[in-house]
């Protein structure tokens, strides 16, 4: 749906000629959707003005950050937040950082590491917005989800500016819940279709202590960066276990003893992706590592605040691993490989290798919940991948899943995905079928409800089984978006 010249001019007056475009040539670069226009606001005031115009003309809009994912109906206005890329404040004393949506995690983390701080980078990767909420490799230290959002500046679907938590009462960003209005349930609603409508224009992210170096000593050329030395008091290992139960017990004890800087339940295929520089090498290394591991496992980073602290943590780790009959993967003990993983898994710079490199696409079922329960479900989902692997539809990763304990480990993230060639229609259909079946099984066998399921499933199965949350959410949306200018779905990546 093209904008009239008059309406286009109204938007142009807000952002300037250079920052609005409705030329069909640019549309495929965004998504396979024809947008009415793509607009690049530079600050909150411009976002607000655009949103008000959308309400005035009853035009739907959606914002994106780096723009990895999202659902975009045809004819809507796309707000590309590319120009809003400033770190507003790093408050070392109160341990928070205020960022605009297009600050990527790599930028913020690099600034933080210089100050002995770190934050939760989401598993999607360090190339994504630092403002994104979710889970990541460092959840044992940084926790995840809405715990890391403090005060937020939000332009509502009607164009009002809402400042949550402490920001609402004192211009301070240190808390999301008060003093001042806490609207956490709306601003950080857990799952689609509950993705917050409107635009986050600034958010304060919680910071954590970083015991490592101000900068990793990286040497070498892309695509193989290594560390010239392992930073003091740091260690990375991969342990495999004879059974899922033993792995889970070790994971739990590590969480309870609070010794891990990072615990990431990679499977062997993901380790292979991380340490290799191309698909052929990955296939070969996966074959080799698969023979080395005795069963499921996890990757762990220990980081001591002092040599004594480091020694203590290593001893605790040794005892826990020994009790669970764990075995260290020799390949990772090689200092070069250890260095690659150490840096990559703190900087979260290889998510693309793990997901897109092999085939070009992946479909996933991620779930946050009680870790032992979701692991049990994932074993079945992994077995269900085997026929697809045999048919050559998906990449052979041994049918594995992955995940990690959050904080002390009782809660955790479990995820399983299929990597495939998106141009292969048969493979795509098979993967979507697998996804649907495993979601249904999760609900039927009472493991969890996959809220990333299709609209139809949410409407008829998932929603009704979860206190009809979808109906409540719709009412909420109707209240905050009376003109219906914010289409549902998608994520702000």
């Amino acid at each position, binding site marked *: 749906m093209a904008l009239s010249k008059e309406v286009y001019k109204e938007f142009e007056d807000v952002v300037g000629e*250079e920052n609005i475009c409705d030329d069909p*040539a640019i549309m*495929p670069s965004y998504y396979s959707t024809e947008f009415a226009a793509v607009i690049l606001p530079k600050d909150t005031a411009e976002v607000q003005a655009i949103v008000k115009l959308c309400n005035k003309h009853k035009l739907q809009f959606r914002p994106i950050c780096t723009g990895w994912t999202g659902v975009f109906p045809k004819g809507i206005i796309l707000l590309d937040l590319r120009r809003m890329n400033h770190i507003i404040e790093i408050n070392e004393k109160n341990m928070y950082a205020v960022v605009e949506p297009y600050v990527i995690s790599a930028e913020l983390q690099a600034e933080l590491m210089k100050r002995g701080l770190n934050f939760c980078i989401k598993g999607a990767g*360090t190339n994504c917005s630092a403002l994104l909420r979710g889970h990541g490799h460092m959840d044992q230290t940084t926790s995840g989800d809405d715990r890391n959002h403090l005060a937020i500046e939000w332009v509502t679907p009607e164009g009002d500016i809402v400042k949550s938590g402490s920001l609402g009462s004192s211009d301070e960003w240190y808390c999301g819940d008060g003093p001042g209005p806490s609207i956490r349930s709306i601003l950080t609603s857990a799952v689609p279709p509950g993705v917050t409508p409107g635009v986050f224009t600034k958010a304060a992210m919680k910071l954590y202590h970083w015991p490592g170096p101000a900068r990793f000593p990286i040497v070498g050329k892309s695509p193989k960066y290594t560390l010239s030395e392992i930073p003091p008091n740091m260690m990375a290992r991969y342990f495999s276990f004879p059974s899922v139960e033993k792995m889970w017990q070790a994971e739990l004890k590590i969480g309870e003893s609070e010794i891990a800087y990072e615990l990431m339940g990679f499977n062997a295929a993901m380790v292979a992706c991380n340490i290799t*520089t191309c698909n052929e090498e990955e*296939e070969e290394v996966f074959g080799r590592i698969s023979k080395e591991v005795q069963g499921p496992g996890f990757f762990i980073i220990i980081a001591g605040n002092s040599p004594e602290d480091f020694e203590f943590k290593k001893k605790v780790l040794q005892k826990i691993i020994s009790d669970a009959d764990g075995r260290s993967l020799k390949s990772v003990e090689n200092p070069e490989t250890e260095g690659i993983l150490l840096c990559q898994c703190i900087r979260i710079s290889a998510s693309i*290798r793990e997901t897109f490199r*092999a085939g*070009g696409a992946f479909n996933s079922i991620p779930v946050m919940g009680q870790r032992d329960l979701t692991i049990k479900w994932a074993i079945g989902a992994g077995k269900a991948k085997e026929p697809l692997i045999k048919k050559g539809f998906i990449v052979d990763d041994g049918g594995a899943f992955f995940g990690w304990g959050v904080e002390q480990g009782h809660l955790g993230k479990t995820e399983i995905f299929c990597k495939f060639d998106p141009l292969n229609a048969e493979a795509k259909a098979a993967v979507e079928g697998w996804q649907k079946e495993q979601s249904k099984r999760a609900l039927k066998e009472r493991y969890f409800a996959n809220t990333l399921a299709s609209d139809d499933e949410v409407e008829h199965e998932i929603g009704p089984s979860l206190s009809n949350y979808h109906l409540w959410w719709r009412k909420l949306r109707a209240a905050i978006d009376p003109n219906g200018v914010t289409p549902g779905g998608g994520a702000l990546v």
Partner: protein
Amino acid sequence: MALEQYHGDMKMCCRCSACKFIPMQRVKGADYSYVCPSISRYKFHSYSGGGRVNIGAAMLEKGFNYTDKLLHIVYNCQMCGACDISCKYAMDMEVLLPINEFRIKCVEDGHTHPALDKVINSLRKQGTMVPGARGKRAAWAEGLGLKDATKEKVEVYYHVGCLASYDKDMQKLAKATVKILKKAGVNFGIGYENETCCGGRAFQMGYKEDFLNQARKNMEMLKKAGVKTLVTGCADGYQAFKVLYDKYNLKGDLEVLHITELMARLIKEGKLKLNKKVNLNVTYHDPCYLGRLGEPWIHWEGKKVPGDRFVFDPPKTYRRGTHGVYEPPRDVLKSIPGVKLAEMTRIKEYSWCCGAGGGVNESNPEFAEWTAQKRIEEAVSTGAEAIVSACPWCEKTFNEAIKESESSLKVHDIVELVEKAI
């Protein structure tokens, strides 16, 4: 290969935006994290490497719709290849090659840029990429008593390049190079009026046929003269002779060296002695076509193996910028007494472009200068007194940007510093 042959590569793009930034592990903070001048200046995703390949894939599928905006996107790219390298840290796919093919298709379809047409006319008439060039190509060499490599046998053929031949401000680089080669006792010669443009810049601009004409002319002359080793001080020329000529099976056994490689070799062998002190704090700018795009061409032909993975039979080895010319210029700088080298944030395979590439210095001088300005700022942040490059195009673009900004930073080509040290 035509654009169609990169359809699979273009469809691999997952819009992760890695192509906009330096490789993630190399990001050192909020400053100097971007690597692509085009997305940094024009901001719409369409100007990024990912945006460009997604447009390419869509137009292959749905037809080519040449709008003014599309052509603005196409011609406002320095073809510096930074997006390609950042993408290939994690992905197995081509980025720069399809972008280049898209531009070639624009030219073939008649959708050219008037400023670039002017440059190409100059190339066709005078064999140079310097529009308005007057006089003889080798006028700068008068009185120097240099050998004519087309008439007598020499060990090394010095290809001077368009800018160092015709641009009065850049002829000093040709003279410095001659002085260095003489001092090291190299038996070398030049082509005088038989030298012609390498064609590399024409290729970047999308004029493939003009490039091929130049390449054929050059190789015919070099073969006739029995040249075994060619050296040049121009990064574009280096990449053309070494990489592009090889890509189109025109290079044969010709050994191609950049002057920094030859100087590093001569210093190591004790044939070139740098004795005089040059007290200067410098930072080094890696020219794109010497660095990441200067790595050898890899001949490969194959087909995708049917199935789940994006792999080929025979396996494909990607050019990822790993093997560019990075150390020789640094080794030379470190050999000059008194020179202190401080590195910028964006170096080697993830270096920021000077702004001149892809014809942008002609099609959009404001954008070229903007790009150079960003590099100047980065160079100043190191505390260096001078930015040193190894390509006359870089020096020219930096000088123009400095003139506008009134920065006190000096600009040198590496041969100028070596000349001072001998």
